[in-house]
């Protein structure tokens, strides 16, 4: 009876929420008050796929959903990104019959790293994809090992883990898991691989198991690559699903030496997201050709690159989550690779859209020296934390005469509108991007 009432309440609140455009957590929150163990009582579909990690969750989930849908499966997933237990409850109960049976063939969940254990207290995924763990929103997440411990509490023996073999910390999830229930994906040594680590910090420098010095035969980016610890033997596992060839400039990759895929977004992130999606869909029994058909030139709906005009400038906004240096480094690398004269505008005004903090230590984790190239003619540092940015840039190799500092974002927009015609790249977060976009003409 309690479950029946919770389902009714959830559906009703979801309907009303839809009318007034409210978020997707509230109906689940109320439903859990009526029936706290609702998630343990509902009958779920045979496939429950969860995706977690620091970066790439939303994109990976979106691709998995598209592949499974193209294969004729009915997929229920949290496309609104509400990935804590209340949002997941809303999703599940909204898709339940009044008798408590969830519709669909697959329940697909983007799962918050720290809260997965609360959600999976009630049911366990059949497949758990873990993409990567690195420094991300440390003001709420603590640090990657803290997140690891939180995710570990959500790993159950019957779940098949789908792990990024190239991440030494993610690989630790397999340590006391049935090897038959661990599947590995990773990138072979290829054109993007480097012998030396690139970045301000190196979270792979120490083995996550024994803290001995880790050795890498190659790096793909940050601490992601091919590693082995001479002290304890923790090493990159052989892969079940691999990108065996990659040409990022041309936007082509090959999976398992047999399927060529064209990339709509030529980023290393996209490569890993595609591979993660491919791996779990293959495990769910989707045909190789069907997967390739969907993934080939796949355009993400949650695209984080926005193009615009501002005066005589062609502009590109590269959304780079604040408090996530890997996301910043990727976008700075993209600008460095363009090779065309440009101005870069970096905005740090509100560090988060969800909470307040004045914490700016993450600026010191970003490799701003990637902008130290001839075609970057000017770097504009704007927002409330422009002085923190300016101090940070004083410790980069970018010449001081290229740097301009100011607090007021409209002033930066007005300046660009009146001056110059070079390309403009804006590097900032969801929390701040509209403050600039309000002053531009968006393309398309």
């Amino acid at each position, binding site marked *: 009876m309690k479950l029946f009432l919770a389902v009714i309440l959830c559906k009703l609140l979801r309907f009303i929420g839809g009318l007034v455009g409210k978020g997707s957590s509230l109906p689940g929150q109320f439903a859990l008050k009526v029936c706290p163990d609702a998630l343990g009582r509902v009958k779920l579909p045979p496939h429950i796929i969860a995706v977690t990690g620091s970066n790439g969750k939303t994109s990976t989930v979106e691709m998995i959903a598209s592949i499974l849908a193209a294969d004729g499966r009915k997929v229920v997933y949290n496309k609104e990104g509400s990935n804590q237990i209340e949002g997941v409850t809303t999703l599940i109960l909204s898709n339940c019959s009044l008798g408590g049976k969830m519709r669909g063939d697959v329940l697909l969940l983007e799962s918050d790293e720290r809260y997965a254990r609360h959600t999976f207290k009630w049911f366990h995924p059949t497949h758990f994809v873990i993409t990567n763990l690195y420094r991300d929103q440390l003001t709420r997440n603590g640090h990657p090992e803290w997140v690891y411990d939180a995710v570990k509490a959500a790993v159950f023996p019957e779940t098949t883990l789908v792990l990024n073999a190239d991440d030494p910390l993610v690989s630790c999830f397999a340590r006391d898991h049935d090897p038959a229930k661990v599947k590995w994906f990773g990138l072979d040594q290829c054109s993007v691989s480097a012998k030396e680590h690139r970045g*301000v910090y190196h979270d792979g420098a120490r083995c996550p198991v024994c803290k001995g010095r880790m050795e890498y035969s190659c790096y793909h980016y940050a601490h992601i690559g091919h590693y082995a610890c001479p002290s304890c033997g923790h090493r990159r596992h052989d892969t079940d699903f691999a990108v065996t060839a990659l040409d990022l400039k041309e936007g082509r990759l090959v999976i398992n030496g047999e399927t060529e895929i064209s990339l709509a977004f030529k980023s290393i992130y996209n490569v890993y997201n595609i591979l993660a999606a491919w791996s779990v869909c293959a495990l769910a029994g989707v045909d190789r050709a069907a997967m390739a058909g969907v993934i080939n030139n796949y355009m993400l709906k949650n695209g984080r690159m926005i193009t615009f005009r501002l005066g005589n400038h062609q502009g590109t906004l590269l959304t780079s989550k604040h408090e996530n240096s890997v996301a910043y480094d990727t976008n700075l690398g993209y600008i460095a690779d363009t090779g065309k004269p440009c101005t870069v505008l970096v905005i740090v005004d509100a560090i988060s859209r969800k909470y307040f903090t004045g914490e700016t230590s993450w600026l010191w984790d970003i490799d701003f020296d990637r902008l130290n190239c001839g075609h970057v003619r000017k770097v504009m540092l704007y927002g409330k934390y422009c002085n923190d940015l300016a101090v940070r840039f004083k410790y980069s190799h970018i010449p001081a005469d290229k740097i301009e500092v100011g607090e007021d974002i409209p002033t930066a927009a007005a300046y660009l509108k009146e001056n110059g015609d070079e390309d403009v790249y804006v590097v900032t977060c969801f929390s701040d991007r509209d403050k600039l976009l309000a002053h531009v003409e968006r393309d398309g």
Partner: protein
Amino acid sequence: MELTFLHLYPDCMSLYGEYANVMVLRRHLEAMGAAVTVQTALFEDAPDFEHADFIYMGAGTERTQKAALTALLPHKEAFQAAVDRGAVALFTGNAMELLGASVTDAAGRVWPCLGFAGFTTVEHDCRYPCDVVACTDLWEGDVVGFMNKCSATLGVDTPLFRVEAGTPGNTGNPDQDDGDDGEGYVSGGVFATHLTGPVLVKNPAFTDLLIRRIFTAKGWELPETLPVLPYEKEAHEATVKGLVGPRYAGG
């Protein structure tokens, strides 16, 4: 004027950009004409405390902190001798805990530490990350920073700061407020705070204090004014404005 910094375990005890503390102090001292050499020590190395004028360690994960402790303990006497000789030390984040008597980890294992002071630390399974506003008798004005702590430190007799907002102090846990607003630890030339990240970047007055202590220890004459480097004070003031503004009204 030659100075040697000893940066302990920068490859892994720099979880929140702490390496910047070393860079900023160095830049200030160089602006005063000093030639600064930064030596780094990894776990596998014997740190050269004998020649160190300034010793620094930043924050690490709880597991890395224990590895740092294991690496450092055999060199405890050398470290103590350097401090006795007048070397200035700064330990930030959970590196501070290593200066005390012990750390008890979340599983209950007790890790004996350097024992420079009698305080003890107990880790727990909750984190209390927060912005912090504090003050100190050592300089005028606000101290600002961030704390990312999952432990309670008890028994600090000589705290470095007095917390005004954000955390109850060395206990680090709003549910374990013992009424003591002390944060960090100071004794002679040894400074420690659980504030994480580039504490010196955020607080130029702290940098100035360390410069004065280093100059005094070396017997060098201090100039009347210390260098003011661009944007640092403005960044400090912007953070104070953000933290002491509406969010912390009423403390």
